[in-house]
């Protein structure tokens, strides 16, 4: 084969495999965390800080219906199970329609769902489709930092309120219709540093996927750790689609540096690679980080025993405490779950929808996009009892106030809720 032909074939390989990764497959994990939540919201924020009431666009709201558009990856590099998502996305609204038919002015909520394939370009496409073709009133990002950032930007340009669980801050602080319904990675950093200190650990390793979305989370943690007097013995970025050799080499570095705790901010699959590799090398550090997808029970099903010492902060609590926080959740699954058990992905969606319902109700009968955003930005606290309370004021886009701390249990292969509503200091 001629040299040129080889180069041509190589390029073709890259293009095709790239296409395959971007669209359909996935193991190697990519940068964005999958956020199984997202959330409710509303109110304001043009440049002047107020959304003009004259433009109280009521697209997607009729006398009988409110349409919500949700996007998340169910195919692609960090997929969530589609059936779980299909059932979980509107179970809260089904229960609401059954138990309180007069809530929201008698309107039913209809959820439209689109797979963004873990691809930011695709995310913008599906968000546009949901707004323009399906008539979605608001948009919700169910997962993937890069996809959420891309779609939030589209939403801001078009005045559509956009909600998600807290991810990165960079790229979202300027999005005037965006609302983070839980603590961002950067906001969680002091909690994590404090927790590490409280547990008596000193030597901390840092492994963060090499994606711009994770940069602010990384920087915030390093600052917080130094402030807390922790010793950062290794600080690395790792390829966001790390191969096994790269994961093992990273493990070796952390092991050589003698890190007792590893701050991990990567896709769950890279986390699994590192945790599994560590176990193969008899190296057994605690992994801790901003959770969301790494805090999903799926990670334990797949990654135990390597991930046995994982702890993650999460917007939602685990199933072990949900009955005391909100007994309706499990009951709703028994009624509307089509035989599927109540799980943590459903819980994330449940908490999110519950917060959004509070925001809709606070807005009242004149439910429109500007009115909703003005209501949210009015300083009211929305407390769903599942997600931590959220509060937005002064054009602030990140309203989270606390997070739940989840702890892995490889006997049951379920995370348990170690501490509820851990407050950010200050």
């Amino acid at each position, binding site marked *: 084969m001629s040299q040129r032909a080889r180069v041509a074939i190589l390029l073709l*390989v890259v293009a095709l*495999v790239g296409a395959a990764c971007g669209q359909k497959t996935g193991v190697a994990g990519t940068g964005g965390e999958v956020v199984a939540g997202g959330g409710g919201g509303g109110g304001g924020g043009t440049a002047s800080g107020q959304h003009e009431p004259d433009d109280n666009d009521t697209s997607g709201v009729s006398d009988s219906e409110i349409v919500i558009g949700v996007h998340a990856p169910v195919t692609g590099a960090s997929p969530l199970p589609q059936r779980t998502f299909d059932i979980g996305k509107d179970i809260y609204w089904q229960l609401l329609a059954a138990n309180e038919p007069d809530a929201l002015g008698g309107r039913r909520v209809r959820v439209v769902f689109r797979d963004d394939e873990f691809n930011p370009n695709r995310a913008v496409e599906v968000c546009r489709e949901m707004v323009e073709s399906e008539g979605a009133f608001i948009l919700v990002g169910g997962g993937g930092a890069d996809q959420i950032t891309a779609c939030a930007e589209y939403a801001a340009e078009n005045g559509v309120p956009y909600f998600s669980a807290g991810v990165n801050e960079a790229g979202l602080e300027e999005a005037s219709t965006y609302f983070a319904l839980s603590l961002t990675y950067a906001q969680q950093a002091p909690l994590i540093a404090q927790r590490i200190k409280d547990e008596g650990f000193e030597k901390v390793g840092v492994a963060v996927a090499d994606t711009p979305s994770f940069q602010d989370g990384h920087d915030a943690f390093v600052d917080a750790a130094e402030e807390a007097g922790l010793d950062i013995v290794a600080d690395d970025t790792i390829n966001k689609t790390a191969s096994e*050799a790269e994961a093992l080499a990273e493990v070796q570095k952390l092991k050589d540096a003698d890190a007792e705790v590893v701050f991990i901010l990567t896709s769950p699959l890279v986390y699994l690679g590192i945790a599994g590799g560590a176990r193969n090398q008899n190296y057994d550090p605690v992994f801790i980080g901003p959770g969301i997808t790494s805090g999903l029970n799926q990670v334990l099903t797949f990654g135990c025993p390597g991930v046995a010492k994982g702890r993650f902060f999460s917007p939602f609590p685990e199933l072990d405490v949900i009955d005391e926080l909100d007994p309706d959740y499990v009951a709703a699954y028994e009624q509307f779950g089509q035989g599927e058990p109540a799980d943590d992905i459903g819980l994330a969606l449940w908490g999110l929808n519950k917060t959004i319902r509070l925001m809709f109700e606070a807005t009242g009968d004149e439910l429109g996009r500007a009115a909703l955003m003005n209501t949210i930005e009015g300083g009211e606290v929305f407390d769903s009892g599942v997600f931590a309370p959220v509060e937005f004021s002064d054009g602030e886009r990140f309203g989270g106030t606390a997070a739940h701390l989840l702890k892995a249990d490889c006997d049951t292969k379920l995370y348990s809720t170690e501490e509820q509503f851990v407050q950010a200091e200050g």
Partner: protein
Amino acid sequence: MDRLRERQGQVITAAVITLLVLVLLATGEKESLVIGVITGSAYGFLALGLVLIYKSSGVFNFAQGEFGTVAVYTLYLLHFDVPYGFALLGALGVAVLMGVVVERLVVRPLFDAPRVTLLVATAGVALLSIAVQIWFGEATARPVGRALPTLDRFTVLGVQISDQRLLLLGALAILAGLLAWFFNKTNLGLAILGSSQEPTATELMGISVKRLSTIVWALAALLGGLAGVLAVPETGGFAPGVLTVAFLIPAFTAAVLGGMTSLPGAFLGGVIVGVVEAVATSAPIFEDIPGSPGTLLVFVVLLIVLVARPQGLLGKAG
């Protein structure tokens, strides 16, 4: 002259490897050496199948990784119901079956088509296979256990080597040797080589070239399946398209490094790619490279080989 050139390849290879080992030991990157060998062997395994198809039909088989993923999927489904050993055999059987089906339905109708057409067709097979896996099993990751559970029997230069990994390494070394013997010494092996060079002449020897093609694809699928069932459990689990996504590019690099037609070269190329990735991740000098130094360095090595020695380390010129 020919022999001289062949020896030149071996000398260069020996020099490259010696240099690599010396540099790694001198810079304290000895762990990368071990990590590279044990993780690179999986690339080598997949590369072996790529080389086999390339030797016989002159095409780069994008579906090679999927033979492995399908085998792992089958192993996963079967191991609930039957002992691991039988599940393993079943998985390999399904991989071979897939190879035969692909050959009959895709390769054979395109027998006389330009190779580029066949190349694109194999990419289509890979994408279809991944889509079917998502369709049946959703795009979720699934755990799959090892054939051999012991993790810490051996430690080499500070890196623990699991029994599963030894099995992979051993199987790879034996198969690379067996295949080299098969192609050099057996009639069937020679016939496969002949059909890649002169299919019409091969036909005129009374050899059914179509039957050969079936045999080759079945064999390649077996190799892909072995790569899957031996390498993937070591990482804990799999998701749709795992071998295509995570292994195919490094394996392709390994095959080109080895010379695209050399079976021992594929094995060697895999190990070199693994070492390069590990070094790029752990050596301090690469720390400031933004992006993914591992991938970057693998491509740099690949480009150097393509420019300086396009026939690869052990390939034959021309």
